[in-house]
């Protein structure tokens, strides 16, 4: 009797630990699937208020596709499907609708409605960086994001392109830059420079 209770207790304990592992997998599996099977696109970020750009150990990102102009009939909180098309080396808005369009699209949610535009979030607005390296992104001239989008419109960040090169948090600060235009930080710390590296191909390995 006592042994049965002990066995039952052990099984229940194991079940709770298994439940916790399963809950972690609920986060991991969809993201891994998107990263593995999704089509890679490059999205252009737009500058955000520097006071809000870098918070703690992650960067807040806003994209050109975060603000949609000329689309009506949406309410705050609505699901939105944004069709994408390639324009040069980045992808931009092709259409926006309440049902999935043909071709490549990304799924988002309407967060704000203004008289002439909509704000949309896609779940790719955060990028975690090693402690203390956020200023490299904050001081960059151009930040693009490599994003994987699966067939259901779910997106996952694969990596950042800072001034055209993959984001390297531990890049040497004193190495001369290819183009001689050092970026000076507002607090007059040593100029940040980047080492020339090949532009990544779509099949490049994720940074995380």
């Amino acid at each position: 009797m006592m042994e049965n209770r002990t066995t039952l207790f052990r099984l229940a304990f194991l079940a709770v630990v298994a439940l916790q592992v399963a809950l972690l997998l609920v986060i991991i599996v969809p993201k891994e699937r998107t990263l593995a099977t999704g089509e890679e696109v490059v999205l252009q970020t737009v500058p955000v208020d520097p006071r809000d750009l870098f918070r703690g150990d992650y960067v807040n990102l806003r994209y050109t596709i975060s603000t949609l102009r000329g689309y009506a009939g949406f309410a705050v909180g609505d699901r939105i499907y944004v069709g994408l098309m390639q324009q040069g080396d980045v992808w931009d808005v092709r259409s926006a609708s309440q049902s999935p369009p043909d071709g490549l699209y990304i799924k988002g949610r309407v967060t704000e409605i203004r008289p002439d535009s909509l704000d949309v979030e896609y779940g790719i607005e955060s990028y975690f960086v090693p402690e203390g390296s956020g200023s490299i992104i904050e001081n960059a001239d151009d930040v693009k994001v490599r994003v994987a989008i699966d067939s259901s419109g779910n997106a996952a960040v694969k990596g950042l392109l800072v001034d055209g090169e993959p984001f390297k948090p531990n890049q040497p600060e004193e190495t001369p830059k290819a183009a001689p235009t050092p970026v000076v930080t507002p607090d007059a710390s040593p100029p940040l420079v980047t080492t020339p590296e090949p532009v990544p191909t779509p099949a490049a390995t994720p940074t995380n």
Partner: protein
Amino acid sequence: MDSENRPQDSPGDDFLGRLQAEVERWQQERLIGARQAAAILCHYGLRPPTAVRVWRLGRLASILAVVGAILVGVGIILLIASNRQEFDLPRGLKVALIMGTTVFLYALGYVLKYELRFPRVGDAITFLGAIFYGAAVFLVGQIYNVQPDEPRLLLYWFVGVVPLAYLLRSSPILALSALVAAAGLGMQAAVWMEYSGSEQVTAIRVLSLYGILGPLYYGLAWLHEGLPPLRDLHRPLQVIGLVMSLAALFGLGFTGLFDLTDESIPDMLGRLVLTYSLLSAATVVSFGAAFYLWRRSLASLPYEAVAALALVALAFVTAYVPIEKPEPAAALYNILLAAALLGTVAVGVARDSEAHINIALGSFAILVLTRYFDWALDLFDRSLFFLGAGALVLAVAFLLESYRRRLLRQVRGG
């Protein structure tokens, strides 16, 4: 029986046998705690004198183990969250390390408690596992760049640890679960309200949410106390429920909160109304079930239930009805908070609960200090307010003292 340890003129074995049985019964009925039981049995030589020391060392070991577990947990979280390049590992390996550490901590806690018979350290390591699991949820989210203010991460934490609290009958893990659930609900409400763009209205509605959740926890505490297998788990719910209820009233008592002249007040979102309604219904059900369980000795339950349900109703009204005059609204919440604090002291005295009295007195001190600086009154007005409030409290004390003397006279006369 240890006859050498008995005091001189020690009573007979019959008495000692009955005393031992009584002490066990007193302890079961919670008239005395483990320390008092050990002290009484030592005094009569029924336990060696070291028994009280053993109890004290056990308690100290428990406290140190929990503090140590929290420190180690925070250290691990910060180490991984710092995302330092020195620890830059492939994504799969990071995930495996996080999952492996979670499972390892639980396995270690289990082995220490049930196999090697170190229950206190084992419990602390399991508690550390529950903290680390929460960190694991956020760290995995970080690896996949999930929004850090995503409420579902807190939901995963809560769903993962609450069964563990009941399986192990662990008060610290239940307290953790209750706090995580509260944080998750608050964050979800804030995210829903964020779309409306009004920070003040968001604050009012999140505080209102806690004005419902606090009474729910308090009702659940009564329910747990009435069910013998869950009795040991009632304390964290009681303390968190009480503090959350008082904190909601306290937060709503700031004059600036209702100063919405420049704000457009957005409609209540359907999802938020549904959340409020479900939590309110759960509060009513828990107090109803508590009434059934305690039907033979209701004690202060009816008064506490009325106060809790009144707060739920008030929270609902606060969230729904736009308040046009900030000062009277803030004054009303402060008066209600003062009444709630007096009620808490009364409940503490009636139930002989130090927790109630300490929470009420601590809250009272915070209330006086903050309101002194919050209210932009002239010194003269301030002085009148504090003179009036002080005189009122002294009058209540005088009436209580008079009532006490009357009772004493009745006791002596009878």
